[in-house]
């Protein structure tokens, strides 16, 4: 199924809640949706198109905004689908996908602590990889890796 077919199939169900479907590297496409309609989109994708298996949730910090993406797999179509949405850079939050895909639980915990995207109504949103009480979010672009002094001495330059 190509991305145009996907858009056609989803248009009657979701209407303007999807912002567009574009081709994406070797997958069925990249579905951009409105952040406030997340759960509807997830349900439609799962139940109408058979994307039962959620394989990955992640976030990207484009400095102006943040993007959260979900990768799902459909046995019926035999393809991956990437769903993504843009969130504002300050206090980004989106509805948790756990009611639709229970496997999103740990992925969302990880995304929350690394990229600082809050998932509303998540059953168990606490630190997973970092120690409890860690206040930084390392995968933000503003978080710089500290460099030991020997690295500072030897800057990489040609």
């Amino acid at each position, binding site marked *: 199924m190509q991305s145009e077919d996907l858009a056609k199939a989803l248009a009657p169900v979701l209407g303007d809640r999807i912002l567009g479907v574009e081709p994406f590297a070797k997958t069925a496409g990249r579905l951009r949706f409105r952040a406030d309609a997340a759960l509807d989109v997830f349900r439609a994708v799962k139940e109408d198109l058979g994307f039962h298996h959620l394989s990955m949730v992640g976030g*990207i910090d484009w400095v102006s905004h943040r993007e959260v993406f979900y990768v799902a797999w459909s046995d019926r179509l035999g393809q991956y689908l990437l769903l993504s949405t843009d969130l504002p850079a300050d206090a980004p939050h989106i509805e948790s996908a756990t009611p639709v895909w229970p*496997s999103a639980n740990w992925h969302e915990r990880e995304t929350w602590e*690394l990229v600082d995207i809050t998932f509303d109504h998540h059953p168990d949103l606490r630190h997973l*990889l*970092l120690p409890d009480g860690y206040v930084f979010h390392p995968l933000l672009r503003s978080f710089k890796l500290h460099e030991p002094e020997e690295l500072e001495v030897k800057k990489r330059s040609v």
Partner: protein
Amino acid sequence: MWINMGPQHPMTHGLWNLRVKIDGEVILDCDPEMGYLHRGIEKISEDRHYNEVVTLMDRTCYVAGFAWEHLYILASEDALHIVPPERAEYIRVMCEEFQRIGSHLMWYAAFVQDLGLMTPFLYGMRDRDIVLDLFQSYSGARMTYEYMRVGGVRNDMPPGFSAHARRALDWLSDRFVEYDRLCLGSEIFRKRCDGLGVLKASDCVATGVTGPMLRSAGMRRDVRRDRPYSVYPQLDFEVAVADGADVTGRYLVRMEEMRQSIRIIRQILDWLDHHPGPVLADRLPRWLGAPYAPVGKEDYVLKRNYPKGVGLSSIEEPHGEAQAYVVNEGSEHPYRVKFRSPVFANISAARHYLIGYRVADIPPIMGSVDVCVGEVDR
């Protein structure tokens, strides 16, 4: 009573903590606690060149280094719009299948040790060394290979490799009979493992469990077959499934996968013998070769306006379905690298296959999951 199993515990095979609530010997609740090996690989990758990330990939999952190298290389080649030579693809797939054998042998060794069997542990480690010797013969290291490059692989096979590999495969396929006699032939083993840690296929899909755990529940899902990548369409193999959804089923699936891997490797060795050729792509951007572009003068590099791109790759790692997502913003560093670890999802479902069993069942069940903490925590 809550007890902590870990981070230093013989059951864990790595650094993680399984908090278990028990009543007598029965498990009432459990809560895996991860992150003791979180090394920030995704963050470090953002400061490295594309080829330098490969050194981190070997260490991400230290029992399946080649699989993770392949995963990352596939995604970054998509992102950089580079096509490798066909011979390089065959060599990569051969590496991955050998790595599957090595990883499953490591799993076998650790798993039987959890059951109190010390002898097969040593057999498994001994036979794994044969595979590692093969790796060393062409990549130069036992576990951290740094062998694959964006656009190909580092070097071709040394002369005489094919015959040596065939002898090793013959020897290995004889050993599987011995393993089966030691484990399946023992009534105590069957009593310990049959009907243990059951996770039905529907629960597997809901909780994101993939790999041998899913196939042991009878579901025939394998990325190599469903969404073929690399040269897998040209290869003839079968997907191993079992129908117990329990520890014995996972054992059977992994043993059968090793046999299928041997079958695949034999086909690849035949192909490699008759198709010599280059193993590295021709037109690579300068910063993928050995020396790199100057930091602080990126504008010269960007002057050439290298195309942006994204890559999403998915492979069947020995533990299950792994994914990599690489964002290329036109610089020599990846903008964002995100990995999906199969063990991450498999452990997150621990509540579903541990509750109700006994404390003594935790080691075989978690052993059958094949935990590799390096790729969970990254």
